């Protein structure tokens, strides 16, 4: 089942614009390697779930994985062949707003080659261009 908030203040949200780059959540914090988004947009809860399933299959029994994004935003849609008006549509799915540089997933406890293979498969399912990143040098 895809992720979604437990409680919200309002059911529907305005669209907003994805501007700028990620200034937070843009480095590998928990695991050893991460998958970084190079483009901005909405990442649906279904996409996050498919990435999670892929990682579970790959790292199960060996390492750990971390999901660094959460779908806080409800996305509405109006049904097909509906006339204009009658207000805003109903929530269709939940999504996370992603800016370029955001780390989407992290893995730890597995060798680099295995982590690369795992995150490459996850990247294939993502709607953005992504890249594999290691931890930043410790200063």
């Amino acid at each position, binding site marked *: *089942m*895809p*992720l*979604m*908030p*437990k*409680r*919200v*203040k*309002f*059911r529907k949200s305005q669209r907003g614009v994805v501007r700028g*780059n*990620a*200034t937070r959540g*843009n*480095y590998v914090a928990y695991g050893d390697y991460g998958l*970084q988004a*190079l483009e901005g947009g909405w990442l649906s809860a279904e996409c996050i*779930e498919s990435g*999670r399933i892929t990682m579970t299959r790959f790292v*199960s*029994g*060996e*390492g*750990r994985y971390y*999901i660094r994004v959460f779908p806080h935003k409800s996305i509405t849609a109006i049904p097909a062949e509906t006339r204009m008006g009658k207000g805003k549509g109903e*929530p269709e799915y939940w999504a996370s707003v992603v*800016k*370029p*540089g955001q780390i989407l997933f992290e893995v*730890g*406890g597995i060798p680099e080659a295995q982590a690369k293979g795992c995150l490459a498969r996850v990247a294939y399912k993502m709607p953005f261009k992504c890249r594999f*990143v290691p*931890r*930043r*040098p*410790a*200063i």
Partner: protein
Amino acid sequence: MSEIAKLTVHARTTTGTRAAKRLRKGGMIPAVVYGHKEPVVQIAIDAIELNRAIRVLHARTFRLEINGKTDTVLIKELQWDHLGSTMVHVDFERRDMTEKVKVAVPIELRNSPKTMGGGVLDQPLHRINVECPFGNIPEAVRIDILGLTIGHPIHVRELVLPEGVIALDPPEMVVVQIKMAGAEPAEASEAAEGSEPEVVTTKKAKDDAE
């Protein structure tokens, strides 16, 4: 002990965003040196040289020759671009070799546990905050996890640190452990009990009406 690297420093008279951008285009990184109640000096460093010192030599202490005087400095802050691929700006702080400094030292795991017991390796702490003399900053804290077993984590208090190095993190903090896979609650299953989330404002409005 981490190596003291030497960097070629170029004096910089211009400041501000535009000047810094011009510098970066020319393969330099703007930096600033301060501390010891001496004047703040704006400098520029060769990007390739600094990159090599940090990524290859793992240096955090440097010798800089500024205006004919050599300063030993510590990286106080390192700014990266949004992708974390290039360095944008460096803050250097002047320090004496005997002065005590507070730094974060990376933790490196050595070997792999003999038996995992069905668990997975979990390392909650990747860097440890320590206090040590400036001239004696350890490159890394290395832990042998060959004897690590399930239910017996390694805490900060069990780390063997070099002489003169004091850990600043709480002693009971877990550094590395073997955790049972799936022991932590899955967020997805918790949140997904209802098909729609609870709306807080609607509830309040109903209460008010009553």
